[in-house]
């Protein structure tokens, strides 16, 4: 347990370098330290309270090993993959706790009714909560069942684990631990209160979880209110005891502070849950989680350990007193520091303040771990000979110094104001800035033998890094972060670039030249992949070839808008291999795993609440043309693993494009990140069939690679696609019957070319383009042959096929039509 606590302190210190900082931090602490503590102590107390004998000697080591194997698997599997390892770990943890609960249940059934048997019922409730919460966590890792909203799962997972597993275990323990710590009698009637409040708390939690999973905000609020009432009732004996005997020991103060923050956390949580829809709760309680961890769970754990560790170590009253004195050293400062820091962690204070607050918390935690380690070592550990001890201390100091000397500047260091600077050692420091798809300066010239130190700062909103052809690289830098690269003495020219997919091709390159032999960066490797030869699609792709077995076309059928005026959807940005032309698979960047992304449909005035989850390894954003709002926040780029909520009211009708809003958009759109939002014009007449076609360009090759991007820049697609597959509807025709009214919505995603949409053999009697009817039936004798759309425009056409047959639909710009923007209407009786 101490080891996990130390790991938590370490993880906090190094969290900038970890792949999933917050998640790992929270789970190292909760799954590692807190869960081990709860399992150990609940069993310990259950034995004491039910007057049981010790379990078989093999039980504890096996359970401890299984639990910690599971925890390690969860932490490693979810952070570094494979995810299956994490899921297996979650299953193992759930199994171990289930086993623990089963033991507790069988004990309390057979118990002779000790005076405090009711406490064990709380432990059983807590264990059941973790079994639920752990299962939810495993489901989140597995992304199963498909289609469930991960934000709702997350909200339920957080609540049941924090309020259930941690909350119930702590509240239950306080019934007896609190009077013990205060060295006084258990308050009268606390047994009855314990039984009653548990009967409220468990259903309360169950209702809360059900409310979150079902997306019913008020159900969740009702459940939480029930839980809060139960907690308030359970704390009545706590207050009575405290009034009779005020806290006077360090452990008591820590427990009191922890309990106070628990009350604050439950109230704050209630207000968060009550003021936002269920889908946004997970996001809303994010700042509350570290607050609860430190203020409540952490302090309670430390308070309990401060009291229990000397008791467990034993060794007679004198040793107990000495151990306690050592553990309590500096407790007033530690207590004050932590409790000043706790609110700063949750409140929106400047980054520096919250950093200092975290520093205090970590220092207090580290101090406790150190004191506890010394206490345990003194009570249990073997004496170390002065020679061995001295050598160990000396070697440790030397190792730290050597590590400092060898640190190569890959660590992220605070930004400093430093321009180009020479110093005596032939070292030259150059400030390098990453911003706006450029690396500044683009060229650095230095004399042969110069030892360059590059201080690389990311001044952009999205992530960048700098990699040199020598293999040296900075870590991936967030906005405002700086890292230093130290180069060996300069011998020849070195190229550098950003490794985020597409950024190198978009121009994020630099070059270090040896003075006197310099060449402009334009003559470097940037152009090596470029040729002047026009690679036109027919020469490359065989559109008449059969599609691969198992290929299914993107369903072009447009379903009517759902009845409600609110539309919610969660869209995941993911990379996926898609068959983009017969027999040709391409790694696409997608919204929701399809190109185009999911089609949204509604009426004028409808509200759309979209949660974008970034499951990719690069930044993405989203821009809905159907809504009108300030782009700053909703269209921002989110990093891998983050999510954002984009809410807009569709004020106007039209066939609207949505697309990724992250630069370079040319690449994000050309690689597939687009889709359509259909907002019906008022009084839109029903038709027999409705289809939607989103036309886009296809660029084959390594996504974001130099070659692919130069094709995008030159506007030389390998093919054009309707709904993500070139000539896909040639192989899986769309259907209609003679005389039926057919409406085809068309959106041109580009990124470069528009469309001249035409159905061979048919004439349009209705044309709607960019929010207005160009033609309606009954307006004279005219008809239309083409719906012309520029990139990002949309509209629809209506027609009725006169007789059975095969009616091709094309982009009548024949360069496009013959290179994939082609499909067939199969009209049969």
């Amino acid at each position, binding site marked *: 347990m101490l080891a996990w606590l130390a790991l938590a302190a370490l993880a906090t210190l190094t969290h900038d370098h970890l792949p999933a900082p917050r998640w790992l931090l929270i789970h190292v602490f909760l799954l590692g330290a807190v869960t081990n503590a709860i399992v150990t102590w609940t069993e310990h107390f259950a034995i004491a309270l039910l007057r049981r004998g010790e379990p078989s000697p093999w039980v504890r080591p096996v359970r401890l090993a299984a639990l910690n194997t599971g925890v390690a698997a969860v932490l490693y599997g979810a952070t570094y993959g494979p995810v299956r390892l994490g899921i297996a770990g979650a299953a193992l943890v759930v199994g171990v706790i289930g086993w623990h609960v089963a033991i507790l249940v069988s004990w309390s059934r057979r118990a002779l009714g000790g005076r405090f048997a009711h406490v064990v019922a709380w432990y059983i409730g807590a264990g059941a909560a973790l079994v639920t919460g752990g299962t939810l966590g495993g489901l989140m890792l597995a992304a199963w069942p498909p289609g469930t909203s991960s934000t709702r799962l997350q909200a339920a997972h957080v609540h049941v684990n924090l309020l259930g597993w941690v909350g119930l275990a702590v509240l239950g323990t306080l019934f007896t631990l609190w009077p013990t710590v205060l060295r006084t009698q258990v308050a009268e009637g606390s047994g009855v209160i314990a039984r009653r409040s548990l009967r409220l708390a468990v259903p309360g939690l169950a209702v809360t979880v059900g409310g979150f999973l079902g997306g019913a905000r008020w159900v969740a609020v009702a459940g939480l209110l029930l839980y809060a009432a139960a907690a308030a009732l359970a704390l009545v004996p706590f207050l009575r005891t405290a009034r009779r005997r005020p806290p006077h020991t360090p452990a008591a103060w820590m427990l009191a502070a922890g309990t106070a923050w628990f009350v604050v956390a439950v109230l704050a949580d209630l207000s968060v849950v009550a003021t936002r829809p269920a889908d946004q709760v997970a996001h809303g309680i994010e700042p509350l989680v570290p607050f609860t961890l430190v203020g409540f769970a952490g302090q309670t754990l430390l308070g309990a350990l401060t009291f229990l560790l000397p008791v467990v170590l034993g060794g007679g009253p004198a040793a107990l007193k000495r151990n306690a004195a050592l553990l309590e050293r500096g407790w007033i400062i530690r207590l004050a520091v932590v409790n000043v820091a706790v609110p700063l962690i949750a409140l929106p204070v400047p980054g520096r303040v919250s950093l200092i607050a975290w520093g205090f918390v970590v220092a207090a935690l580290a101090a406790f771990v150190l004191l506890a380690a010394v206490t345990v070592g003194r009570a249990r550990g073997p004496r170390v000979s002065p020679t061995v001890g001295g050598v160990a201390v000396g070697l440790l100091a030397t190792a730290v110094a*050597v590590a*400092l000397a060898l*640190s190569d500047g890959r660590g992220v260091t605070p930004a400093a104001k*430093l321009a180009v600077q020479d110093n005596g050692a032939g*070292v030259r420091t150059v400030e390098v800035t990453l911003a706006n798809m450029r690396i500044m300066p683009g060229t650095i010239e230095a004399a042969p033998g110069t030892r360059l*130190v590059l201080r690389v700062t990311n001044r952009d909103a999205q992530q960048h890094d700098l990699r040199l052809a020598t293999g040296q690289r900075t870590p991936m830098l967030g906005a405002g972060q700086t890292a230093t690269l130290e180069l060996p003495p300069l011998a020849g020219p070195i190229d550098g670039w950003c490794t985020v997919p597409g950024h190198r091709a978009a121009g994020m390159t630099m070059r270090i030249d040896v003075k006197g032999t310099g060449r402009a960066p334009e003559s470097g490797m940037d152009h090596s992949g470029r040729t002047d030869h026009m690679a036109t699609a027919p020469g490359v792709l065989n559109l008449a070839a059969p599609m691969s077995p198992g290929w299914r076309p993107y369903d072009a059928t447009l379903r009517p808008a759902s009845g409600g005026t609110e539309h919610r959807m969660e869209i995941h940005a993911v990379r996926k291999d898609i068959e983009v032309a017969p027999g040709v698979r391409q790694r696409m960047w997608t919204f929701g795993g399809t190109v185009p992304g999911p089609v949204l449909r509604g009426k004028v005035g409808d509200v759309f609440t979209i949660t974008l989850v970034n499951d990719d390894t690069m930044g993405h954003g989203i821009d809905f043309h159907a809504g009108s709002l300030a782009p700053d926040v909703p269209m921002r780029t989110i990093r891998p693993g983050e999510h954002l909520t984009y809410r807009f009211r569709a004020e106007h009708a039209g066939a609207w494009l949505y697309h990724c809003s992250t630069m370079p958009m040319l690449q994000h759109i050309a690689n597939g990140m687009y889709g359509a939002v259909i907002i019906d014009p008022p009084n839109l007449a029903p038709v027999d069939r409705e289809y939607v076609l989103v036309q886009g360009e296809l660029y084959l090759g390594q996504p974001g690679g130099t070659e692919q991007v130069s094709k995008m820049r030159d506007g030389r697609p390998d093919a054009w696609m309707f709904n993500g597959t070139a000539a896909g509807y040639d192989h899986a025709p769309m259907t209609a019957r003679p005389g039926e009214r057919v409406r085809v919505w068309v959106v041109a995603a580009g990124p470069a070319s528009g469309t001249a949409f035409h159905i061979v053999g048919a004439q349009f009697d209705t044309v709607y383009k960019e929010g207005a009817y160009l033609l309606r039936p009954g307006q004279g004798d005219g008809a239309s042959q083409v719906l012309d759309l520029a990139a990002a425009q949309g509209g629809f056409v209506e027609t009725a096929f006169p007789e059975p047959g095969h009616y091709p639909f094309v982009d009548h710009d024949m360069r496009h039509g013959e290179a994939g923007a082609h499909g067939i209407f199969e009209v049969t009786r």
Partner: protein
Amino acid sequence: MTWWSVIRFLHVTSAALWVGGQLTVSLVVLPLARRLLDTGQRARVLREVGRRFGMFTGAFFLPVQVSTGIAMAVHKGVTWESLTYPGYGRTLSAKLLLFVLVMVAATVHGWANGRGMAVFARSMAIAALVGSVGIVLLATALPVT
């Protein structure tokens, strides 16, 4: 051969005397004293050895080391800022850090001996010795210029 060679000579020689002195006391004087002298004599001899070595440290070693070290750093153009640079700067600052730690350990050793905490004092002395060897290691790692 310039005056700077003399300064460097002083720096290296003084360091060699200090590390060598510690090694001699730990590996030669202490075992022999344990074997050849009775308890009372041993305590007196060792106390005197310690006091002398402490005097050598305070009166000669530290002033020479610090003054020649600073002089060479200034001459070489080392700035506070350059101490954070990877390579030479960081190696030098690591060496300085370890030097401070060793001096702290040596001071604690003297203080603990005076208070009769013999075991703790001994472990601090050995830590100082190992750390001093570590300083030599870092000194050899400083790139030659």
